[in-house]
C-alpha cells in the first residue's frame, strides 16, 4: 500500500527445491513474503523482486512442500504420558529414540528402567503400544510385570483397546481377585487372576489406573507435543481426526487457545460424528454448530470437517470384510454404527456442506461407504464434495472405479504394510488378498485422488517413512507384500503433500511450493528421489517452515 514499507521478500537458496508443482518441478531457490510463497526460480530471478534479500540458512538442504498428514490424532501427544513398549521404533516429541520392544523380556527391561524414574510410589505406571499379535506364543501376565514392581500398580493397555494386563499390585489395589468370576478376567493355573483383562467389563475393574490416558483425552500439553512431533517429521499440516469436544465451548477454546500463530503446524480438527458411543440425537444441530465453527477457522486452525467411523481393525479381526472373509474363517468384524444411523449422519453433514472422512478398514465398510455416498449424492447432488474413504485398506479394484465415478478420495494406511504386513500375509487376509492391502497403484490407475497416512499414534507419525512403505511395500520380515501395488517415490510424495491437501480441501493454500500458497516447507538433508527407496524414511528432517516461520527439529542426529 502507498506510504507503507512493503514486507521484505526473503530468498532461500537451497541445494534443491522440489515443488510438487508440475509446471516447475524443481528450482534452486524459493522466495517468501510474509506467510506466503512469492516465487520459485533461480536466485537471480528471485532477487529481482522488490525488497528481496537472501537468507542462506537452507543453502545445503533440500526443500519440499511441508508434509500434510490427513489422518492422525492429537492424542498422539497424550500417549507419551505413558511409557512406550511397542514393537516398532519410535521417536517421542522430545526427540528421544525408543527402540521397539521385540520380546517380553525387552518389554520388562524397558519397564524396569522407566519405573525407577517415577517418584511417588503410589502413582500407577502406565505403558502403551503393546500389541500381543507380535507375541503369538507368549502372553504377558502379572507374573512378568511383578518383575518390574510388586508395590506400584502397573497398567499395560493392549494396542487393540480391548484388553489390558496389570500386575499383582494393581490386582490388589482394584480388588480384582474378588471379582475373578467377571467374564474376561483370565485366571492362572492357581485359579487366581493372571493379570489379563479382556473387554470392557473386566477392564473397568482397573479403570481408575488408566483414566485420562486415552487417545481422546487431549490437553494443551498434548497438543504442543503433537505439534513438535510434526516439526520433527517435516509435517506442516496435521489432522485431529475425530474429537468429541467441539460441541462444548471448553473443547473449542482448548484448540483456539493452543493452536495460534506460534503453533508449529496447521491443525484440521474433525468432529467425531458417529461411530463412537451413542449417535447424537441432534445431528442437525451439530451440523449447524460445525458450520458456525467453520467461520472461526484461522490459517492455522480449521473446523468444519466430520469423521465417521464404520468398522474396527484388520489386525483385531474387527474390520468388516466381504466374501471370502478372513483368512482363518474368523467371524466377520463389527460395525461401530448401524448402516441406517450412518446414512442419516452422512446425509445431514453432507447437506450442511461439510467435508466427511469415513473410517473404512475392511472392504465391506468401503462398500457401505460407496452405497451410502451414491444414495446421498443422487438425493442431494453436491459437486466437488471430496468425501474420503480413510484407511480404505482392502478396497477392491471395482470399488476404486466406483470411488472415482462418485468423486470420492482414498486415504490409504500405507504404514500398515510395514507394521502389520506379515500379520496380513500370515493371519488376517492371507497371502493372496494381502497383496491388495492399501493398493495405492490400483487407486492411481483408476484415477482416485489418494493420500497416505499414519493414523498416529496407531503407527508413528512420519510422512517420509510412510512414503517408503508405499514405495517398497516391505514388511518387517523383509517380504514384499504385493509388488504390483508399489508406487513411484514421486507419486508417493505427491500423495503426502498435494494429495492430502486435496482431500482436506486446502490444495489451493498448501501442498505444493507455488506462488500465493502458504510458505510451508519440510527441510530435509537429502532429496527423497535421489536416495534408495528403502532409505527414504531415514532421511534426516532438520525442521519445518510454517507460514514463513522456522521450526527446528529436536531430534538428535543418530
Amino acid at each position: 500500500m502507498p506510504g507503507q514499507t512493503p514486507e521484505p521478500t526473503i530468498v532461500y537458496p537451497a541445494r534443491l527445491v522440489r515443488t510438487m508443482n508440475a509446471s516447475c518441478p524443481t528450482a534452486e531457490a524459493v522466495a517468501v513474503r510474509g506467510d506466503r510463497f512469492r516465487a520459485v526460480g533461480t536466485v537471480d530471478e528471485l532477487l529481482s523482486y522488490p525488497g528481496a534479500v537472501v537468507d542462506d540458512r537452507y543453502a545445503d538442504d533440500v526443500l519440499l512442500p511441508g508434509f500434510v498428514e490427513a489422518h492422525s490424532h492429537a492424542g498422539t501427544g497424550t500417549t507419551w504420558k505413558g511409557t512406550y513398549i511397542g514393537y516398532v521404533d519410535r521417536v517421542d516429541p522430545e526427540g528421544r529414540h525408543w527402540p521397539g520392544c521385540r520380546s517380553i523380556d525387552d518389554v520388562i527391561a524397558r519397564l524396569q528402567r522407566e519405573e525407577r524414574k517415577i517418584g511417588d510410589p503410589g502413582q500407577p505406571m502406565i505403558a502403551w503400544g503393546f500389541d500381543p499379535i507380535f507375541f503369538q506364543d507368549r502372553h504377558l501376565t502379572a507374573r512378568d510385570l511383578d518383575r518390574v514392581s510388586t508395590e506400584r500398580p502397573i497398567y499395560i493397555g493392549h494396542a487393540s483397546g480391548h484388553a489390558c494386563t496389570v500386575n499383582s499390585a494393581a490386582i490388589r489395589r482394584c480388588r480384582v481377585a474378588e471379582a475373578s468370576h467377571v467374564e474376561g478376567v483370565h485366571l492362572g493355573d492357581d485359579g487366581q487372576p493372571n493379570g489379563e483383562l479382556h473387554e470392557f467389563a473386566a477392564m473397568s475393574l482397573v479403570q481408575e489406573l488408566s483414566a485420562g490416558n486415552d487417545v481422546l483425552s487431549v490437553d494443551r500439553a498434548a497438543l504442543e507435543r503433537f505439534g513438535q512431533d510434526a516439526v520433527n517429521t517435516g509435517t506442516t499440516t496435521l489432522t485431529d481426526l475425530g474429537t468429541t469436544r467441539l460441541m462444548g465451548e471448553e473443547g473449542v477454546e482448548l484448540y483456539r487457545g493452543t493452536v495460534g500463530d506460534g503453533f508449529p503446524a496447521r491443525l484440521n480438527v474433525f468432529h467425531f460424528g458417529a461411530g463412537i458411543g451413542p449417535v447424537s440425537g441432534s445431528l442437525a444441530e451439530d451440523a449447524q454448530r460445525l458450520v458456525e465453527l467453520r467461520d472461526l477457522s484461522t490459517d492455522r486452525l480449521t473446523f468444519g470437517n466430520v469423521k465417521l467411523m464404520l468398522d474396527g481393525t484388520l489386525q483385531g479381526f474387527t474390520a468388516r470384510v466381504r466374501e471370502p472373509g478372513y483368512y482363518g474363517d474368523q467371524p466377520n468384524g463389527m460395525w461401530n454404527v448401524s448402516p441406517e444411523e450412518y446414512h442419516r449422519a452422512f446425509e445431514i453433514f453432507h447437506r450442511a456442506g461439510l467435508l466427511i472422512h469415513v473410517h473404512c478398514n475392511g472392504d465391506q465398510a468401503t462398500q457401505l461407504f460407496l452405497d451410502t455416498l451414491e444414495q446421498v449424492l443422487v438425493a442431494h447432488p453436491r459437486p466437488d464434495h471430496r468425501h474420503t474413504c480413510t484407511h480404505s485398506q482392502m478396497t477392491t479394484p471395482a470399488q476404486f472405479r466406483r470411488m472415482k465415478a462418485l468423486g470420492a478420495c482414498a486415504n490409504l494406511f500405507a504404514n500398515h504394510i510395514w507394521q502389520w504386513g506379515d500379520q496380513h500375509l500370515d493371519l488376517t487376509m492371507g497371502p493372496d488378498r494381502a497383496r491388495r492391502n492399501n493398493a495405492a497403484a490400483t487407486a492411481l490407475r483408476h484415477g482416485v485422488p489418494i493420500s497416505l497416512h499414519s493414523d498416529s499414534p496407531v503407527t508413528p507419525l512420519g510422512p517420509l517413512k510412510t512414503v517408503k512403505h508405499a514405495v517398497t511395500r516391505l514388511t518387517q520380515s523383509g517380504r514384499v507384500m504385493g509388488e504390483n501395488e508399489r508406487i513411484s517415490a514421486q507419486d508417493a510424495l505427491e500423495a503426502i503433500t498435494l494429495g492430502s491437501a486435496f482431500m482436506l480441501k486446502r490444495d489451493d493454500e498448501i501442498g505444493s511450493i507455488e506462488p500465493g500458497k502458504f510458505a510451508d516447507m519440510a527441510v530435509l538433508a537429502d532429496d527423497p528421489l535421489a536416495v534408495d527407496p528403502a532409505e527414504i524414511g531415514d532421511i534426516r528432517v532438520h525442521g519445518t517452515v510454517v507460514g514463513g516461520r522456522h521450526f527446528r527439529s529436536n531430534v538428535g542426529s543418530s
Partner: protein
Amino acid sequence: MGRTGKPLTLIGGYLGTGKTTLVNHILSAGSYGRVAVVVNDFGSVNVDASLISSAGADTLELTNGCICCQITDDVQRTMSALAAREDIDHVVCELSGIGDPARLGSWRSYPGFRPGPVVICVDAAVTPRRLADEYVADIVTRQIAAADILVITKTDLATPAQREASLRWCAQLAPEASVHQAGPGDAAGTEAVIRELTERAKGEPAAPPVQGNPHPEPGQDASASRSGSRDPSAPDTQHEADRSEHASAHASLTVALPGLNAVQRIVAALRDHRSALVRAKGIIENDEGGWSRIQLAGDVVTTEPVSGDRADRPAPDGLPEPKDPESSLVLIAAGPHAEQKLRFVADALRANACTHSSAGAGKATADGAGAVPGLASGVAPGLANDAAARFARGAAPRTAGTPGVTPADGPAADVPHPADSPTPVHPRHSRTAQ
C-alpha cells in the same frame, strides 16, 4: 461379592424394532419393583412428566421408584455405578441397535449384577429382509440367537407372509426362546413380556461361567438366561454349559408322528394347548403325500407345505430342527410342571395324529371339534400308537439334536417296524452356510 446381586436384563434388537417402546412400558408400569433402566438416549424415552420426581443430566428418578439412566460416553462408569447401588432391584439395559448381547452380556457377571434374561425385539415386517442384508444379516442373526425372550413387534405393518417368515426365522435361530407378539396398542402382549422378563430375572442366581470350569455345578440350575455372555469364537464348552443350564429351566419332548397325518387336526390340537407350551416345531408327513412344517411361536400356530427340496429353508445357525427323515414335532414347555404339560400335549397330538388311524381314534378327536376331550378323559396313548403302528415307518428312539431336548419318550418311540410300511420320500435336508 459377585455371586449375588441384582439381575441385569438386556433388551436388544436391531434399530427400530421397538426396544424403546418396551422400555417406556417398563418405566411407566412401575409395578415390578425398583427398576433402573439404562437407555441410549433420553430423547426417545417417553415418560409422563408427572412421574418424574427429579431429573439430572444423565438420570431421571420417577415417583414410582424406577430410575432411567442415559448411557454416556463412559459406559464403564454408568454400569459400575449402577452395579454399586443397593437401592435397586433390577437393572434393564437397552442395547444399541447393533449391540451384540453376547458381547455386552459380560457385564452381567460384574460385581453387583447377576444374569437376567436377554430380550430381543424383532420387527415382524423387515426382519426377513435384514436377514438377507449383506451388512447386517450376521448382526441380526446373533441378536436373535442370543434371545431368551423374543418379542415380535410391528405386526400391524407386516403382511401375514412377512410375519410368518419372521416367526420361522425366530424358531430356527432361537428354538428355545419364548416368543411373544406385541403389536402396537397390544398392552396385554407387552405386559406379558414384562411379566416374563421380571419373573425370569427373579430366578435364583445361577453360577456364572468360570473359565476352566464351564459346567455348572449340580443344583445351580435355575438360570435366568441361557446365553448372552458367551464369546461366539469360544470353544464349544461354553455352549455345552449353556445347554445344560437351559435344559433344566425348560423341558422339551420330541413326539414322533409317523404315518400320514391330518395336518389341520394337529394344528387344532396345538392351538388348543398353546398355553401349555413355550414353543413347538417340526415337520410331519401329511395325508396328501407331502410334508408340512408346523410351528407354534408367539401363541400362533402356523403351517406350510415343505417342498421336496428344502434348500430354501434358511440356515438354522447350528440350532437344528428335528432330524430328517422323521415325522415329528419338538415341544418345549417351561415352569415347574413343564414335563407334565409336555406329556399331556404329546398325548393330545398322538390322539390326532394319523388319518389312517382306526375309526375309534378318529372319532375320539373329531367329536371334540378340536377341543380334544379325549385328553381330559385320559385317552390312552396306546390308541394312537395302535393306529400308527399300521403305517409306521420305523421311528427309532433317538436323542433330539436340539439343545436341551430330552430323548423322545417311550411309547411313541417304541413303534414297531412293520415290513409293509410305505417308503417315505425323504425331503433333502440341506443347510446353507451363512
